Structure formats: structure tokens, C-alpha cells
């Protein structure tokens, strides 16, 4: 668990996530895949500058009308909405199960094979090489 948010704030945060990235099909709920808030903690470490504002914004949310409030913030208070977006999307799309759902493996170390560059150009480079001259020659 995190010491950055109270249990009440955590509940609001998860409820916001249910609105912004609701579970469906193979896509899990944030509260399911980050029950221990370990991924949230990583985001909070990366964006420690935003944690105080997150606490303030969460305190101002009304659990009974979250969707309307979020839509209003998106249109009229984008700065605070983006604080929520960074923590919700930042946490959610960091989680391996979710990355599998969206087809994103993360940034990877993928050394190319020796011939990959040449193979990828083989059917294209002749056209590029034979392009007509369209550039200006400068008299010396």
C-alpha cells in the first residue's frame, strides 16, 4: 500500500480509474491489477512533483458524480484533469497485464539482425535512388 494517499483517497482514485479506463472484456480494472498500489508508487516516484496536487484534486472529487465532474474538468480545468490522467493512465498502462491487452511490450532491447536494414530497403531503394533532380544548383 501507499503512504501517499489515505484509504479514502485511494477509493476515490480507483473509482476515477473505473470511469476513465473501465474494465471490459480482457481489460482489467486498475483496482484489480494494482491492488497493492505498487505500480502507483512507481508513478508517484516518477512524478513526485505532481503528488501534492493529486492529493488536493482527489480531496475535491465528489464520489457520487465522478463522471460528470471528470468531463467538466476535461473541458474547463485541464491542468487538474491532466494530474489525474497522469496517475490513472500512467499507472494503468504501466502494468504488464494491461500492456498485453493494448499490444505494447514496453521499450525493449531489440538488436537488429545483420541483414535487417538491407532487407527492408531491397524493394524500395531503387525508386528512391532514381528520383529526378528537383534541387537547385548554385553557381560557384
Amino acid at each position, binding site marked *: 500500500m501507499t503512504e501517499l494517499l489515505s484509504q479514502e483517497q485511494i477509493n476515490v482514485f480507483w473509482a476515477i480509474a473505473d470511469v476513465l479506463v473501465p474494465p471490459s472484456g480482457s481489460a482489467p480494472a486498475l483496482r484489480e491489477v494494482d491492488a497493492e498500489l505498487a505500480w502507483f508508487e512507481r*508513478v508517484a516516484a516518477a512524478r513526485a512533483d505532481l503528488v501534492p496536487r493529486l492529493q488536493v484534486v482527489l480531496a475535491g472529487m465528489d464520489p457520487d458524480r465522478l463522471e460528470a465532474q471528470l468531463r467538466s474538468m476535461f473541458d474547463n480545468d485541464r491542468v487538474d484533469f491532466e494530474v489525474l490522467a497522469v496517475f490513472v493512465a500512467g499507472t494503468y498502462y504501466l502494468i504488464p497485464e494491461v500492456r498485453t491487452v493494448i499490444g505494447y511490450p514496453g521499450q525493449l532491447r531489440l538488436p537488429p539482425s545483420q541483414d535487417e536494414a538491407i532487407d527492408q530497403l531491397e524493394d524500395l531503394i531503387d525508386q528512391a535512388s532514381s528520383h529526378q533532380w528537383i534541387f537547385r544548383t548554385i553557381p560557384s
Partner: protein
Amino acid sequence: MASSDVEEIPDVLIIGSGPSGAIVAGELSAHGFSVVCLEQGEWHNNDEFPGRQPEWELLGANKWHRDQNIRRTPSDYPVEVSQSDITPIMFAGVGGSSVLYGGHWMRMLPSDFRMHSLDGVATDWPLTYDELAPFYDAVESAVGTAGVPGDPAYLRGPNPPLPPHPIGGVGRTAARGLASLGWHWWPASNAIASQRFGGLTPCVRWGTCETGCPEGAKASFDLTHWPKALNAGTRLVTGARVRQVTLDSRGRADGALYLDRLGREHHQRGRMVVLAANGVGTPRLLLLSSSPRFPDGLANGSGMVGKRLMLHPTSAITAVYEEDLKSWMGPAGQAIYSLQFYETDLNRGFAGGAKWECVPTGGPMRAVELLSQDGFDSAWGPGAQDRVRSVVGHSVHWGILANDLPDESNRITLDPVLKDSDGIAAPRSNYRISENSQRLLAFHREKMNQAISASGALRTFEESTSVEAGHLMGTATMGDDPETSVVDKWGVTHEVPNLCIVDGSVMPTGGGVNPTATIAALALRAATHLVSQARWQEVSG
């Protein structure tokens, strides 16, 4: 009061350790000159960079952000931008902004040096492409650029020492679109090693070039040039923020006052002073160095110091495709580029042209940002994950890098209020995107949309103008006439014969391509000149 802790006076004092400072330091040291370089930032190593971490995108939005006004480290100085359409961005550290650049390595075209003669705008350079070409060749050999020789855009063009990187799904998709229209494209030249080269390791496609290469494959100048310069004897002082260039009784530059990490002031002397502090830092320092002899700023008799700031406005269109292009994969770096509409055609209603570049698009946070352009229900709510999935890995960032004509009202001055962490006046950027640039970008977006359509895109996200730019040029312009320029064609200031400027400040025009190759070639040319002319060079003391 400054401590006088340096007794031996080096031949050359360089201020700034980015690409141009690194090149000049290495060249002069290799020829037996004693060299000291002052750098306000620190060394960084590969392990510091966030590319290997899952939260890479989040760290790139804060601690490793490209914009110093967001990053806000003590080494960086802030830039006041309330009157600037674009924020000039830079990085303070050994290697300078090359630590965070994308490594797009482009030469200017011959016509860029003759815009006044050819198009009736801007000014001609006091040198030609052909004069600079041997220095392009030399710096590319030292940097280790990777690419394919033979680009039909250049009669005498690059011959990269390293083979190209795979252009990937991003490059192949974009190339097919351009080829179907018969338009120019070429596999990109990047300052990223495709094979082991000097101190560089081969690129393994992390795709995180602009937050620092975690592998040590990107040719940042802390890796490509500083080890050799240090081995040749250059003394590099980090954590040294220069606040003034000092003069001797004859008005020759004789050193610089700098503050160390603890705020203690030192006077580092030098028989010659070379400014390599970038197109914002150099005019800032010249203006900070005003004196009774130079009341409007050092070497500013022309009044041109700080003026003609060029930043390269950009537009971008992100195109989304059905196929999985793995467009999170590097290098990033450019995959391909096009110069189809690079040359001026005044019938279009504007002067200049632009380079197009196709690059990877990153991860899910970028996808969310793009989807948010369409409103709440695009990025969020039921099905959000499917929509993010449709963009991540399936998209190509098509960028337009506009030729930015010099305009004296676009300028760097000293801000009367904002200070850096040492209490020194911060630079203020006054910059408006010109009508010419607006028309240019609109034309290019229209043409680019044709190419994107031809490449089979499902949909696009358009960003009409960028909010930040790291191409800092023009603020101490080069020319033959001391009335209208700050430095001569070798980078020596007209008014102070032992003060030289070697960064992007000296560029009379900026072309429509990434400027590091040109800045590096100019710096090598200036250093070569200093070596050859040393016998006759005026010095302080």
C-alpha cells in the same frame, strides 16, 4: 571578489561543452594548444537515462523533459518565454543538448547558403556549401553517422561511415506512400551507431533517444568527442557557470568569471576565448558582458547580438494504420526523410521549404495524449483500451521542420526579473512564428496529408505548430560587414579579434533541416582556421 586560482594562462578558453565546444577543444588540443573548457552542467552516463525503465514516458515528462523550464535542474538556466510562440530548449551538461537530441543528422542544401541571391529574402552566407562540405565529411567520420550514400538531393552529399539502421514498419509504410506519388524520400541519416564505433555501442532500438540513450549508441558529444579532447590535454571544468567574459586593457578577451557549484567566483583566464554556449546562451553571455567599452554588450557594435533568433517551427501529423508497425521501436532517430518540397517556389506564397521526417511514436501515454485531441470520449471511458491499442505501435509521426527566416524582432535579451540558480539574469525569448512560416507549414501539411493518404493511413492527428524547439540559431550572425553582423566567416567577432563564436548563433539562415551537422562542421572549420592562423592570431596579455 573573484579568486585568482589559475596561474598558467591557457591558449584557449572555451565556454560550453556541447558539440561545437567539444569539437574545438579536441581539434585545438590535438594541435598542441593548451585548452580549458568551462561547462555549467555535469557529466551524465547511460545508466542515468530512463529508457530501460517501464515508466520511461513519465520520466521523460519531468526529470528528463527536453524543456529546461520543466526539468528545472540547478545546472539548467530558465528561459523567459511569456512573449515567445515557441520555447527554446536546451540541456546543460557535458555534450550539451546532444545528450537529449534525436540524432537526426542532416546537411543543409547549397541553396540554404544563398537565400538572398536566389529568393530575395534573408541574407547570403559568407561561405558556400562547397566550402563547408569537407568539414561535413570530417565531422560525420568522427561522429559515426549511419545511413545510405547517394541521396539524389545532394550533388556532393554525405557518405556515412556506418551502414543504415533498419527503417522498420514506420519507414517502409511512409516510404511506400511517398514513392507512390513519385516524391523524394531517403533512408535517414542518424548520428546513432549501427555498429560498434569508437566509444559507441550498436543501437539496440530502445527508441528512447530523446531522453538520453541508455545503451551508449547515440552519438552525443560527451561520448564521441570529449574522451579524445581530454586525452589530448583539454581541461574540462564542470559545474562552472560563466557570468561574464572579461577584457584586458586593450579590449581583448582575457578570460571569464564563473561561479562554481558552491557559488564561489573564479576568474579563468585565456589568451583567446571561444563561445560555444548555443544560440541562446551565447547572446546571453555577450549581453551580460557589457562594459564601458561595449555598453550594449560585448562585440555588439552592430546591435545584432541576440537578434534574428531562428527556432525552426514544426508541424506534425501522426498517422494511424491498420498494420502493427511496432512504432514504439527505435531508433528515434528518424526512419526516413523527404526533401520533396524543400526548395523555395515563390509561387506557393512563401519562401523556403521544409524537411519531412518519419519517426516512431512511443508508448501509451503518447497515444492517450493524441486521442485526447478528439475529446473525452476518445481517450477515456468504455473502450478506451481498444482505442489506445489502435494507436500504440500502429502509428507514424510525420514531422515538418520549417525553414525559419531571420527576423530582427525575434530575439534574445536579458530578462529584468527572472534569474538562474546563481542569481544571474536569465535570457528572455521574444519570438513570433512569421506569416511566411505559417503559410509554409500550412502548405506542407496539405502536401503531407496527400502522402499520408497514399500510405494507407486510417486516420490522422494533426498538430499545427510545436511549442518547443531545440534548434537555436542566428543570434550572433556571421557576415563580412561589421555593421550588420557579429562575426566574420570564421566565427571571429568583428570587434574583439581574439573572441570567437562557434555555435548555432553564427548561422545567417537555418535551412529547413536539423542544424547539428552544420553547427559541428562550422565549429571544425573555425578550429581548423584558428590552428592555421595561430601565428598571426591576436591574443590577450
